[in-house]
């Protein structure tokens, strides 16, 4: 007993932190499993509409993304506050000139292996307040480049009226 008292000297014992790395590693594993790599930086603000009958994307590697929404704060000076189309990392200069979509789709199609090309899916991620005009234009352009499999990005939720 006397030995114990000598060691303590009235100080608080130090907390044992040897399990801290394990805990952090578990959190790390969780994030690695549950998240996916960010491919592009979204420069337009997109809040996808709510829907209840949504299906999961089956093949992520075959998906191409088109973002439509109002430019976020730091790009508003350059692009205004109207809805804009973003392909890869650039916001389209002109909403009426959709030829860049064609190039974009062609480039994306090149990236996919030949056998999988018919299954390519274009994921349209548009903001819920976007007007359908611009989306219809995009859809027409996609039809013209025969990228016919599309998906309207939506999030799960009760449908509002």
């Amino acid at each position, binding site marked *: 007993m006397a030995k114990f008292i000598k060691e303590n000297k009235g100080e608080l014992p130090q907390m044992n*932190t*040897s399990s*801290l*790395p394990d805990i*952090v*590693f578990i*959190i*790390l594993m969780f*994030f*690695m499993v*549950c*998240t*996916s*790599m*960010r491919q592009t930086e979204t420069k337009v603000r997109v809040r*996808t*509409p*709510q*829907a*209840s*009958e*949504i*299906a*999961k*994307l089956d093949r*992520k590697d075959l*998906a191409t993304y088109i973002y439509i929404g109002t430019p976020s704060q730091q790009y508003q000076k350059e692009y205004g506050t109207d809805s804009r189309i973003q392909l890869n990392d650039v916001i389209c200069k002109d909403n009426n000139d959709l030829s860049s979509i064609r190039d974009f789709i062609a480039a994306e199609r090149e990236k996919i292996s030949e056998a999988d090309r018919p299954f390519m*899916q274009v*994921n349209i991620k*548009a*903001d*819920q*307040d*976007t*007007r*359908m*005009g611009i*989306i*219809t234009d995009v*859809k*027409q352009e*996609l*039809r*013209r480049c*025969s990228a*016919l*499999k*599309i*998906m*309207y*990005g*939506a*999030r*799960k939720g009760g*449908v*509002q*009226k």
Partner: protein
Amino acid sequence: MAKKKVPEINGSSMADIAFIALIFFLMVTTMDKEEGIARQLPPIPPEDQKVENQEVNRRNIIQVKINANDRLLAGSQPMDVSQLKDKIKEFMTNPYDDPSLPEKEVKDVKGIGPVPVSKGVISLQNDRGTTYQAYITVQNELVKAINELRDDFSMKTFGKKYSKLTEEQQESVREAVPQRISEAEPKDVRKK
């Protein structure tokens, strides 16, 4: 022989390394799930194609229109989105063989046998000013109506819900309860 003591590796910086890795993953990854409503666009018709075979019997088409104020018109009557699902279900099943609702064709579906299959087509039209949320809501109602019909059908024939069926059974159900949603060529409905 006395055992030589191996010096222990100092593990106190392990936590810091793990934290840095954790922060890296927090920065470069996103958590948003890739979900949505999948659709197939119709191919662009060749320019020399004549528009003769597009004449479908009028009773087989239901027009669903959304205007710029997000108001809905189904068939010929204005309605709320909440009513649309039942309207579509009635249209697709035609329970009392109403002559104004779509005709049915008895088809031999693989694995089930002869089934009356509706010839109904839903034609969806929207204005350029419709909001995307309204459009998706309507699309969602259409999908929901079809999904419920498929569930009903598979309950009747297989005694199970559609999602619990095997791949082949699902295919037969899909054939028996087809999802025919045509997104019409865009029209400018605005008044000029």
